[in-house]
């Protein structure tokens, strides 16, 4: 049976989680040639706090559209990190926005301050989600950076293309940096925004 990838993006409303989910799905599906199914959680009819998007990708048609065991979990805040960590496979990847996530449940956690980067480097918190997509791309071999960039550019408002591809790159870089830091076995350093 073909390999099935299960990804969950989680955080709070206003962090652009749903849009990230759609872009990720399009990167994998439209530009990556995979079968994809994307779902999201809705709060009560009135606006709710938590936000969650899931993307399932596979080389064959997707039956059950929701995640069963996660290959990758992105947690943009502490609550979602605590809540969803248990859904991760043993070898699943956990990426957190260290701007808001202070306690990580595993040392293997990939900690990158997406929001901080967004603030300090782009003076726009909203691009934090795009930055996180960069990191995801770096850590998921099934996504090609070009596919992701195409997907991002196809969805973001006209006029913001430059900003967003820059953000995407920043995410990729930050992720690489983190990888190295881990290879070097050093404690992952907090990002200070030099680059």
């Amino acid at each position, binding site marked *: 049976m073909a390999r099935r990838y299960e990804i969950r993006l989680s955080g709070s409303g206003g962090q652009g989680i749903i849009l990230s989910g759609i872009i990720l799905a399009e990167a994998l*599906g*439209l530009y990556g040639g995979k079968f994809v*199914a994307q779902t999201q959680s809705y709060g009560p*009819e009135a606006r709710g706090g938590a936000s969650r998007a899931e993307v399932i990708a596979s080389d064959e048609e997707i*039956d059950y*559209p929701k995640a069963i065991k996660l290959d990758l979990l992105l947690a943009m805040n502490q609550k979602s990190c605590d809540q969803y960590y248990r859904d991760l496979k043993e070898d699943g990847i956990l990426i957190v926005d260290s701007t808001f996530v202070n306690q990580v449940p595993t040392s293997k956690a990939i900690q990158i301050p997406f929001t901080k980067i967004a603030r300090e480097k782009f003076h726009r918190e909203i691009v934090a989600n795009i930055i996180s997509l960069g990191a995801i791309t770096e850590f998921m071999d099934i996504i090609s950076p070009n596919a992701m960039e195409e997907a991002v550019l196809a969805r973001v408002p006209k006029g913001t293309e430059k900003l967003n591809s820059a953000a995407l790159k920043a995410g990729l870089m930050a992720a690489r940096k983190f990888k190295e830091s881990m290879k070097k076995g050093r404690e992952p350093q907090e990002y200070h925004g030099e680059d």
Partner: protein
Amino acid sequence: MKKRQPRESLMQGNEAVVEGALYAGCRFFAGYPITPATEISEVMSIRLPRVDGTFIQMEDEIASMGAIIGASLAGVKSMTATSGPGFSLMQENLGFACMSEVPCVVVDVMRGGPSTGIPTYPSQGDVMQARWGTHGDHPIIVLAPSTVRECFDLTIKAFNFSEKYRTPVIVVFDEVVGHMREKVALPRAEDVEVIDRIRPTVPPEWYIPYEDTTQGVPPMAVFGDGYRFHVTGLTHDIRGFPTLRPDEIGPFMHRIHRKITLGLPEIQMGEFFQLEDADIAIIAYGSVARSARRAVMDAREKGVKVGLLKLMTLWPFMRVAVERVIKRAKALIVPEINMGQISREVKRVNEGKAKVSTINRVDGLTIPPGQILRRIREVS
């Protein structure tokens, strides 16, 4: 890296319904917002004016149903979309469409019920209502997609059936299907079969609007094209005028049921998945059919001979398909996100032949593959 396919795109089930409707020639939509069907109204409001169609947000669902019947009588294919609470309100006028044989399509994106229930969570609780919601005996066709692509395809079918059989057609699916996004490649318009109602060819003075025909479907004139006929929700004679005569009412009632029965071979659609050698058969529809499919594959890996009958038509109930399945299958599993609705029909036509067991959930969640797999193990 793969290049993006021309007409490929990622869309929600709700959006696919709109695409299907537009392909099928729908040019009038009247609706009232309601979670989780609202996207259908919203996208319609954007798309229709671009193709010279009309979108109107009415004061409620009763009005929406009335408006689409009116539009259809004026010759424009029409549709509305809602969820449980609104669907309940549409029932009276829905019955009018059955009685006066006016083609139209109603989409019900099912959320948790009863009453306001759980607006943002999936359910299959309206399946019996779709068949029996309005008063009096009435024929109806109910389709149930389980994928985004099926949302597109079955909406087209819905319009085709409604036009061909002069009847309202209901499309029902749970919130998961409505909000889920999948990659779909829409066909070229010319590759899609679109059926329009048969118009009268006789001169107006010869036109008999409710005359019986071999297929039981009289040609349908349209307001404004010179036939000046009468339409009423009262029992009517073949000319469409009110009647109290049993010898006119009886034949009429039987004709409007017969016309659907005659169409069953094409109306009843389903998917037979690995049923050839199946001792256990799962009968499912909507998002649950997706879980079932996965469960079948997992069970097969463990060597269990199990298959899936996916219902794409819920009403009229697919007796023949089920009978075919139970020719071999000794056990039937019917998982539904309700207290057991289609399973009642399965039991009815099963007539005690196979062992029927049900899986039901009404806590707001859909049924995951694991839950079905467990049941397969139990019965095998």
